[in-house]
């Protein structure tokens, strides 16, 4: 147990009240004088070239202010996404925008626009592109590989026999674009008592942000003000400035609340820059409201996998070797990297003695792909769980035992480089979860009851969960108040607030005496990390720690200078700095802050460290002279992968006659170092569980391959789980062992909270069906009915974007 005042304690994040009362403002809610409304015309074709635009009728309409086309914005080299394009590569690719005095006029104008598009070949399934003679999603090629050595297009084709063999479950023999390995693979398989070989497909599906990527912009004296829907805050600045063709000093970003991003709004996306260009062109503030339908076209989706894996296990269940090959569906804009991350996850969570990863990113004319919670790690978690179960079955072992013997621990090494981890206690998490779930007892219960059969599953999730090198900035004002400036975006996880408490913890401040400044560049925010990859907790407890330590150093210097003695003679508590040997002799934080202003220099931000980011520098300059300023870059030591880990146990009751199942119980355990904010952690674990349940069974991404037409352009068609599709109670816990490389012992958890859930579900479904492995997510009722009744599935093996 620790004796923290704030760390590990619950609190009410400051944004909660606005969200439950409806007072919280999102990008769409802002209005400024003279603002006009823009709407987009997007491509009706999956791939083509715009040859003619006739906007004359629209331009002649009363109330139409202007039209923005691809000619008005910077050209972008394929396959990167453009603000507007004349070379659309998926249905819904933005072609132009119309601005009008109101939205209805803008819609009327859109209906009057005539665009001629010359169609080009298109494809919605990577294997249909990869097969000899198959269409390429881009004229430049069908593969876009990114690597440190250089990125570029390629055209890769496999023979029909190679595709057929792959679909049949055989090891892929076609060309690949990436490879890494460690250990002696041949020896690993030779040492194996059991070798499991499976192919798999995981369908990518939309991020489904409730708030579409609406943005509003206007210019004042050369500064562009953008109200956007941002998952991160200061991390957005360089990218958005680049898109707008300006410097970060000339950009103000306002994004105080964000209605979900889930990986699709990590950095500035092209369409966020459209209102800035449009506003500059017509001289009016412009709000571009993206419709819900358009959000599905261009709001991105998870990368889909089509893969093959061979895995060897020793007699005791230890993984001896893993050979994995993954084709990534990277959409039209070539956002990927999930496959290699999946390989990395295997190397950590299951820690095989030897491993080879091969990957091939293939372009399709489908919605742009982007990182989605556990990008790569969570797809492979779903694949791996039934494989672990199959190995256990063939070895006569408890599936829990096979997880434990391979569980990530402090000696685990990861990826090709086989680097270490900061700490890892997955076995402890499995033990805790098994006890909460009563695994042993449940394993002994009868499985079948009429048409219903019980299934038990265990899942494990992982994502690297930390980042370093960002800045912290705090300020104490003469009224004694602690101001915590944070560039952490408010994506709904409360991390902007929970990590801010680290500064208050160091300075022993009452939380009621603290004020968080966030969400608006003019609130003088520091350079902070992206809010993704589960990094915020680790990264920004560190940044707030170093800023607070800088403030503490300065406060003790001021105290010694004012009251005599050495700085080390002083201590803090109760918002006072006092002599350790005589607590009555001291100064309040307010008095110290007033003195800092008098002294100037580093004390009140007139000078600052050289190594802080230019964004932080400008914020400090703006704050200089207003109080005692603590500012520092996180240069704390850090070595090795920072793992966020989780495991889950689930029991389902599956009806063999309907293919439906009910989740009877769910236990999720977090292994994320010290628990920073218990209520927030519980919400992450529960929200992740629901998302995993959706990935396992419900959420779909359907494209008509003949027309390249997406079916899923709304919540209903996408099949997100609802309140009544998930258990009313999901139980959670946490291992709560401090990580040595964080001042408070904390690591992140967001992504593994979902990965463990989808994996537990695929494991439980397999268990209910006597070990059958579908090798696919989602597993839908029709698939179960077809399996139980001995029918073939409707789709081709490895077919994707079909559910």
């Amino acid at each position: 147990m620790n004796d923290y005042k704030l760390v590990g304690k619950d609190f009410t994040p400051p944004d909660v009240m606005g969200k439950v009362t409806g007072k919280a403002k999102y990008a769409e809610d802002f209005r400024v004088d003279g603002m006009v409304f823009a709407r987009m015309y997007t491509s009706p074709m999956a791939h083509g070239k715009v040859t003619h635009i006739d906007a004359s009728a629209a331009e002649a309409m009363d109330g139409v202010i202007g039209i923005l086309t691809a000619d008005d914005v910077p050209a972008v080299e394929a396959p990167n996404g453009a603000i507007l394009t004349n070379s659309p590569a998926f249905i819904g690719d933005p072609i132009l925008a119309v601005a009008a005095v109101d939205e209805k006029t803008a819609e009327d104008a859109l209906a009057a626009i005539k665009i001629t598009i010359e169609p080009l070949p298109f494809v919605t399934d990577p294997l249909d592109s990869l097969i000899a003679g198959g269409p390429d999603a881009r004229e430049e090629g069908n593969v876009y590989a990114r690597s440190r050595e250089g990125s570029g297009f390629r055209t890769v084709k496999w023979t029909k026999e190679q595709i057929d063999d792959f679909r049949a479950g055989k090891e892929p023999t076609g060309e690949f674009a990436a490879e890494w390995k460690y250990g002696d693979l041949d020896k690993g398989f030779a040492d194996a008592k059991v070798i499991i070989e499976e192919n798999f497909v995981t369908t990518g599906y939309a991020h489904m942000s409730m708030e579409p990527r609406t943005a509003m912009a206007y210019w004042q004296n050369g500064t562009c003000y953008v109200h956007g829907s941002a998952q991160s805050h200061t991390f957005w600045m360089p990218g958005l400035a680049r898109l707008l063709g300006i410097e970060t000093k000339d950009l103000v970003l306002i994004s105080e609340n964000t209605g979900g991003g889930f990986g699709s709004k990590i950095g500035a996306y092209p369409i966020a820059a459209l209102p800035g260009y449009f506003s500059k062109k017509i001289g009016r503030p412009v709000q571009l409201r993206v419709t819900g339908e358009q959000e599905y076209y261009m709001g991105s989706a998870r990368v889909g996998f089509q893969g093959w894996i061979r895995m060897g296990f020793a007699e005791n269940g230890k993984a001896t070797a893993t050979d994995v090959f993954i084709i990534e569906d990277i959409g039209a804009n070539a956002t990927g990297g999930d496959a290699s991350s999946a390989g990395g996850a295997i190397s950590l969570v299951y820690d095989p003695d030897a491993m080879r990863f091969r990957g091939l990113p293939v372009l399709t004319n489908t919605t742009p792909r982007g990182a989605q919670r556990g990008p790569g790690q969570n797809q492979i978690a779903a694949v791996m769980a039934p494989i672990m179960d199959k190995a256990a079955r063939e070895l006569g072992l408890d599936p829990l035992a096979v997880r434990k013997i391979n569980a990530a621990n402090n000696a685990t090494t990861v990826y090709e480089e086989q680097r270490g981890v900061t700490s890892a206690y997955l076995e402890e998490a499995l033990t805790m979860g098994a006890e909460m779930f009563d695994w042993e007892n449940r394993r002994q219960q009868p499985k079948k009851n009429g048409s219903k059969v019980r299934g038990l599953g265990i899942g494990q999730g992982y994502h690297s969960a930390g980042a370093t090198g960002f800045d912290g900035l705090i300020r104490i004002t003469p009224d004694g108040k602690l101001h915590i400036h944070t560039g952490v975006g408010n994506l709904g996880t409360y991390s902007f607030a929970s990590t801010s408490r680290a500064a208050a913890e160091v300075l022993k401040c009452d939380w009621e005496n603290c004020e968080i400044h966030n969400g608006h560049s003019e609130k003088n925010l520091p350079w902070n990390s992206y809010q993704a990859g589960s990094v915020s907790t680790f990264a920004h407890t560190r940044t707030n720690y170093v800023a607070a330590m800088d403030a503490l150093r300065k406060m003790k210097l001021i105290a010694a200078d004012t009251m005599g003695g050495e700085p080390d003679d002083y201590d803090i508590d109760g918002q006072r700095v006092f002599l350790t040997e005589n607590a009555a002799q001291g100064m309040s934080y307010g008095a110290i802050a007033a003195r800092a202003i008098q002294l100037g220099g580093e004390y009140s931000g007139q000078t600052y460290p050289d190594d802080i980011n230019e964004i932080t520098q400008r914020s400090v300059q703006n704050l200089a002279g207003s109080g005692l300023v603590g500012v520092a870059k996180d240069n704390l030591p850090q070595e090795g992968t920072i793992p966020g880990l989780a495991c889950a146990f689930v029991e389902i009751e599956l009806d063999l006659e309907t293919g439906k199942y009910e989740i009877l119980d769910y236990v999720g355990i977090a292994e994320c170092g010290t628990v920073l904010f218990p209520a927030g952690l519980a919400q992450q674990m529960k929200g992740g569980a629901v998302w995993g349940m959706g990935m396992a069974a419900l959420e779909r991404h359907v494209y008509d391959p003949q027309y390249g037409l997406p079916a899923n352009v709304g919540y209903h068609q996408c099949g997100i789980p609802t309140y009544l599709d998930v258990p009313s109670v999901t139980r959670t816990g946490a291992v709560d062992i401090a990580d040595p490389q964080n001042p408070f012992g904390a690591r992140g958890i967001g992504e593994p909270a979902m990965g463990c859930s989808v994996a537990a579900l695929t494991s439980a479904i397999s268990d209910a069906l006597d070990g059958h492995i579908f090798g696919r997510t989602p597993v839908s009722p029709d698939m179960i009915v077809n399996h139980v009744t001995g029918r073939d599935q409707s789709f081709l093996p490895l077919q994707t974007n079909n559910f």
Partner: protein
Amino acid sequence: MASFDVMPDIQLYQPVELDDALSLAERYGDGGWVLGGGQDTYGWLKDRAKNPQAMIDLSGIDSLRGIRTTDDGIEIGATTTLREIIRDERINRDFSLLAQAAGRVASPQIRNVGTLGGNLSQDTRCWYYRRGLACYRAGGNLCYADGPESMNREHAVLGASRCVAVSPSDTATAMVALEAMMVVASASGVRSIAAEDFFVGPATHITQMTALEPGEILTAVRIPSKWAGQRFYFEKVADRDVWDFALVSIAVAMRLEGDSIAESRFVCGGVACTPHRLKNVESAARGNSLSEASADAIAPLASAGAIPLNYNHFKLPLMENLVRRAMRG
């Protein structure tokens, strides 16, 4: 491709007398859009996929709302909400099949405002059609859902004729099983239509799901006492327990004499453009008891004549399984 989501300019009428609503329906004909709870209205209009001239809102007409006892059963006003049906004591006592079916419609929120008339009259959910494509049902000359690569997991396995869309209504199957009569009014009078005839397939009328003609309004549904208190079975299989439409559903009414089935109505949803009666199952069931053995013997008849599309052959065993479950004791 424009994306629309703003409500277009449209006349809105909110009559409080049925006669006024009928006059408006007659005046506007094809250009009139009759709505009750409005749960399948605003999407169509905001998307500009349907462009009527006027909305005729029936929710202010008191005479269209409520559940009344008749000489031979009950009459349910068309704007009675699904929630009111689910909670009605008489319906739960005598026609629990309908209460169960209504209880599986959409979501609690939609059931709170969605009406019986709206649920029975709603348009198909074929995603190609809903996208505004110019298919047969939309007046075009193509069925996008019935091509060699079409994504038609949710579509018809029976009764297709150019169009392969299915009826989405959960209460429709119950109404056919209960031999309900639809009361349809127009400015020129009132007619009653048997539920089985109210729902029309593409071979009859490819752009309509019901027998309602322009100018007509469904005012009430009458359920005869014939099946009151008999044995019922309802089950809906959908991807999600909320919001989703049936992959396959079944509504069954059975009259038992002793242990054997004297008469029955088996009606499947989600398999055809109309609620689909399994007449061969009904015939085979007659004289049988409810048992595992008779369930096994009769269930295979359920999918007779079904012709699956690319992605929906699972509906055949699912139909059989639902009949099997209904036939168990």
